[in-house]
């Protein structure tokens, strides 16, 4: 996803000479093509995320679209008040880019696990939250994000993830959800880089005779309410998957929509169960440890489908 982001950004920087990328001294292997090609459109703010974000607001106030770039929780939680007061309240075109959503930096520990960012950013008025599931979605989102007024948050995974979409995502419009596999027994909705696990889980479920529809949500605020209400009419069970806390993030957003819609379908949330990670390991190890890898998604979905449907029957 990182490389897809850089490629898309390079194209946009060529079109808009005022587009400016500000990094918090990170992106050694990712941003080099950008700073070598567009040195006038690049600023290293140093290891100073609060000031980086204020600086971005000031730059944006001079008629620029400005991206801030860092990893994990540094471009978001470390400077959340600057995002809120300086960028969002002033309706400035600042795009906050995080590399390492979820457990990307799994072995580095809790400080580097971004597992509340979606919920926190989603709570800020006027902030659009993008959660692409694979490189194809990243390429589609970047140009849309740069044309979306105000503050946006782009939550990327890592480098080298497989592309789940079979074809490039063409003519993507905010906040369109993407159906990657059609099914009839359960809908599994996914936000962010955990899409590979969701998609793999659907294949496992198929082998067990369960037909799962897989829908990726590359944007969780605003969220594709039309798609959600349509799914709620077709399915009795909806499973949400996010490499993130189940509190207030993607699953929370889905519940908000469907509760107000008055749907009879049940929503089951997969993600961090309101805890901090306290062990380390590879991203895939931690997904397994915290019950959100493909095996866990498959097994938990089977359990939910087998359990008696409470309440409406």
């Amino acid at each position: 996803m990182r490389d897809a982001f850089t490629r898309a950004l390079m194209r946009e920087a060529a079109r808009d000479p005022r587009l400016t990328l500000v990094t918090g001294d990170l992106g050694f292997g990712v941003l080099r093509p950008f700073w070598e090609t567009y040195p006038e459109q690049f600023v290293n703010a140093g290891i100073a995320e609060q000031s980086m974000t204020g600086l971005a607001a000031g730059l944006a106030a001079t008629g620029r679209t400005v991206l801030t770039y860092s990893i994990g929780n540094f471009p978001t939680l470390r400077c959340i008040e600057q995002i809120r007061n300086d960028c969002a309240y002033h309706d400035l075109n600042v795009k906050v880019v995080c590399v390492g959503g979820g457990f990307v930096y799994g072995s580095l520990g809790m400080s580097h696990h971004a597992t509340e960012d979606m919920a926190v950013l989603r709570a800020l008025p006027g902030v659009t939250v993008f959660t692409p599931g694979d490189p194809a979605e990243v390429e589609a989102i970047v140009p849309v994000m740069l044309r979306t007024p105000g503050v946006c948050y782009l939550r990327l995974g890592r480098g080298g993830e497989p592309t789940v979409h079979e074809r490039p995502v063409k003519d993507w419009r905010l906040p369109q959800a993407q159906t990657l596999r059609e099914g009839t027994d359960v809908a599994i909705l996914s936000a962010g880089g955990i899409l590979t696990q969701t998609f793999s889980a659907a294949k496992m479920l198929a082998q067990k005779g369960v037909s799962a529809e897989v829908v990726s949500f590359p944007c969780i605020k605003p969220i594709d309410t039309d798609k959600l209400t349509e799914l709620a009419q077709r399915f009795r069970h909806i499973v949400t998957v996010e490499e993130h806390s189940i509190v207030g993030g993607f699953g929370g957003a889905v519940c908000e929509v469907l509760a107000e819609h008055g749907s009879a379908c049940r929503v089951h949330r997969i993600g961090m169960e309101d805890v901090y990670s306290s062990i380390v390991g590879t991203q895939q190890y931690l997904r397994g440890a915290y019950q959100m890898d493909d095996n866990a998604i498959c097994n938990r979905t089977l359990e939910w489908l087998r359990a008696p449907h409470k309440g409406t029957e």
Partner: protein
Amino acid sequence: MTYTEKTHAAFGDHPIDTADPRVLAWLIRRHGLEMTHISRGSHIGAIFSVAEVTAVLYSGVLRVNPADPAWPERDRLILSKGHAGAAVYAALAERGFFPVEELSSHYANGSRLSGHVSHKGVPGVEFSTGSLGHGLPVAAGMALGGMKDKADWRVYCVLGDGECDEGSVWEAALQAHQYQLDNLIAIVDHNRMQSLDFCENTLALEPFGDKWRAFGWHVIDVDGHDVDALQTAFAQAKANRGTGKPTVILAHTTKGKGVSFMENDILWHYRTPQGDEYEAALVELEAQRP
């Protein structure tokens, strides 16, 4: 009597020349007293300490146009110590950005004049603040943008000294030096007091000027209540353009300046002027009317 008539009463039939920084500074204090009295609001000590700095800025130093507040070539001023917002509101109103009468709505239900300075719907306010440590990074970003655009305008940022406890101030101080922002002028309202105590008893800032110098800034020390000295300091700061270094003016001020019983008394960071204290403050201010 309207709010405007009341706050202008001391001038009688005398013309009010708000282009005179002494007149504007007096008006800022008069409004500061009245606004905090009506609203039962706080921060009169900070409003009084920054009165001359604000008056000198809005009576000629800043290139701004009340008829066109968003004029692209304007100088930008960020009041980072947003709790002294009444001083900026008063200066803007007296300079014609919006009606003086509206100052009476400060803090009121439904008012756009929030206790900490806000830009939403308020002509002439460049940036909303209130949480300390936000102004200088944003000012640095504006200055960097102006520099990239080879713009003539400058960016001014007024900070409190207590505000310099915030780490983000020093992050921005590093950045402004690194990016050679000689179009950026910071002013510290150095009244030596903060919320609960003197700065030196809280987080000691001294040697304050040396800290800024060590961060690569030009430092100008000035009596922050001496209008002529402030004008000279701003002229020097403007002349630093081309040196590749930002400038900080350390304006040595007195918290609560202008009312004897408020000066250097921490009580008046929060206390609101009511009853006899309001009347006594008014008598003292009226005696100082330029």
